[in-house]
């Protein structure tokens, strides 16, 4: 009787798992592709992300600096020269718009990663550990759930220094409790499955159980949650910036809206000034929501009927 060398068996086992994962991803993509709202959302996102990444090619960042734009007309209507018109300082709103997209998307994504990372961490630990650890973590989660988001963020943003990092931190640490509850519930159900019991009976340690069995099973949910948290983070950023708590030197869509409102663009009928950033926020938030809903439907077919 020949026994395969342990190393060969190990690699082949991993290869099987990897092939299975690849197959699962391909299957998810095949189902996702059939969702019209998912595809529309994805296309809109790709367009805006490309626009944001290509900002330096489309318009020089000098256009953001008022010392270079003093010769431009103020509140100029949209024209061939100024695609989206100009603002109160003569800056091209098109330039502000595409550079703002970078900041808004960056803040949205970074804050979401913090929020979902924190929420998933707390959720997995609470769900897996159980007992007193779970009780304490869930108490903390419930406490953060009753803290109203905007006032808390306003307070944090005003006691902290006004910077992009702090805005990201503020949104990140105020948006995690929902994720934590969701992930914990999923972990609780995964933990009870038979193959987890089998693995434990075979002597698997905590780390092995969590990284090989629990995490791969909650990963799709985490991913869907990630997609649905980005629009909330982007909307939060715009609200905080509109209230004057954003980083004044990093122009996001929210900061443009605040500038527009403060410079009386509304009463001066300078609609181009606030319409571009506002619609930008709506389209990005809508696109992420559509992608997230489509993902949820793929991952949980029961939702399709609802």
């Amino acid at each position, binding site marked *: 009787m020949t026994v395969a060398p342990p190393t060969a068996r190990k690699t082949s086992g991993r290869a099987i798992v990897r092939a299975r994962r690849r197959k699962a991803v391909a299957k998810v993509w095949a189902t996702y592709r059939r969702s019209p709202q998912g595809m529309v959302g994805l296309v809109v996102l790709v367009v805006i992300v490309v626009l944001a990444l290509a900002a330096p090619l489309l318009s020089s960042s000098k256009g953001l600096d008022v010392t270079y734009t003093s010769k431009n007309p103020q509140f100029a209507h949209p024209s061939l020269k100024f695609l989206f018109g100009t603002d109160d300082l003569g800056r091209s709103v098109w330039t502000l718009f595409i550079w703002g997209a970078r900041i808004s998307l960056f803040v949205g994504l970074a804050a979401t990663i913090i929020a979902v990372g924190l929420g998933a961490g707390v959720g997995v630990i609470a769900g897996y550990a159980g007992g007193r650890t779970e009780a304490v973590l869930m108490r903390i989660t419930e*406490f953060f759930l*009753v*803290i*109203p*988001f*905007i*006032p*808390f963020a*306003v*307070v*944090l943003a*005003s*006691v*902290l220094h006004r910077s992009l990092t702090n805005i990201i931190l503020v949104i990140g640490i105020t948006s995690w409790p929902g994720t934590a509850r969701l992930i914990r519930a999923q972990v609780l159900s995964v933990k009870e499955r038979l193959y987890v019991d089998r693995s434990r009976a075979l002597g698997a340690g905590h780390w092995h159980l969590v990284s090989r069995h629990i995490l791969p099973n909650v990963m799709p949910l985490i991913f869907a949650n990630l997609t649905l948290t980005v*629009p909330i983070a982007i*909307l939060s950023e*715009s*609200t905080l910036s*509109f*209230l*004057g*708590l954003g980083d004044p030197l990093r122009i996001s869509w*929210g900061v443009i*809206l605040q500038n*527009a*409102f403060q410079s009386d663009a*509304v*009463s001066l*009928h300078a*609609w181009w000034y*606030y319409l571009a950033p*506002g619609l930008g*926020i*709506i*389209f990005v*938030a*809508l696109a992420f*929501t*559509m992608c997230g809903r489509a993902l949820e439907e793929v991952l949980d077919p029961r939702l399709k*009927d*609802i």
Partner: protein
Amino acid sequence: MSLRFVGRKVVGSILSLIAVIIFNFFLFRIVKSDPVGSLLRGRNVPPDVKARLRHQFGLDKSKIDQFWLYMRQTARGNLGVSIQSGRPVTEDIGNSLWPTIWLVGLSTVLSTIIGLLMGIKSAWQRNSWFDRLSTGVSMFTYATPDFFLGILLLAFFAFTLKLLPTGGIESPTGSTGGISHLIDQAKHLALPCLTLTIGYMGEYAIVMRSSLLEVMGEDFLKVARARGLRDALVRRRHAVPNAMLPTVTLVTLNLGFVLSGAIAVETVFSWPGLGQLTETAVHNQDFPLLQGLFLIFTAAVILANLVSDLLYGYLDPRVRVG
């Protein structure tokens, strides 16, 4: 509903409130070690004035003494003095409370009614053109920052059509009392109220729709139909009442958050409520006022949670035991 259930919920809420009060202290005192310094923001003030200010706010005492002083004062309903206005924080908040309650209350009632009707019709005629439109509108309003919606409405109705006033709660030269005064106030209320109504109705519509769809799969509706009841009667008597529960809970739960969610909208319409007070407090770095506002906003959420729990327990007997 058993007394024990109510008691447990009330005690839980009080504990949450105490936790929030303690949290509130650390949030401001620990993160910001020198409130006076940040208040003066580098302005050139003689050291003795600074010292007097620190003494006045009790900042020359040790952190533990400050904490007990804060707890004692808060327990007595003393939230300190606003740096900007010099009035007690409770007085400033009291003055701004009613405009916000009016605005939030009315828009909650409207958005609930419209949202419920939209959701019911959507679910009952699933995949119809109405359902598609309603779901589309709901998702669109969900993705719109409410202050941006406010700006659009302000630009269109107030500055372009000149139909409605541009902000405030009443005209400065308006007559006091009488029908014209009432109409004037209603006109001022219209736009902010419309903004919040549109902002929240979509969420309620989506929740009502999905909970009604869930109920529609239940056997008791088949039984009701088998009894030969008309479609409208099945919907009104059997489906809707059973689907109301999650939506009613959501609306009550949301009430606490709507209060603070109106901050940006109030700013757009210069509505003299808690939101505008928050905005000026942020602008002036008025920390005692901000601290008081934070406490009020959080207390509102805790209260809304309690009401929602009790309502759920009252409406759904299964919860009372759990």
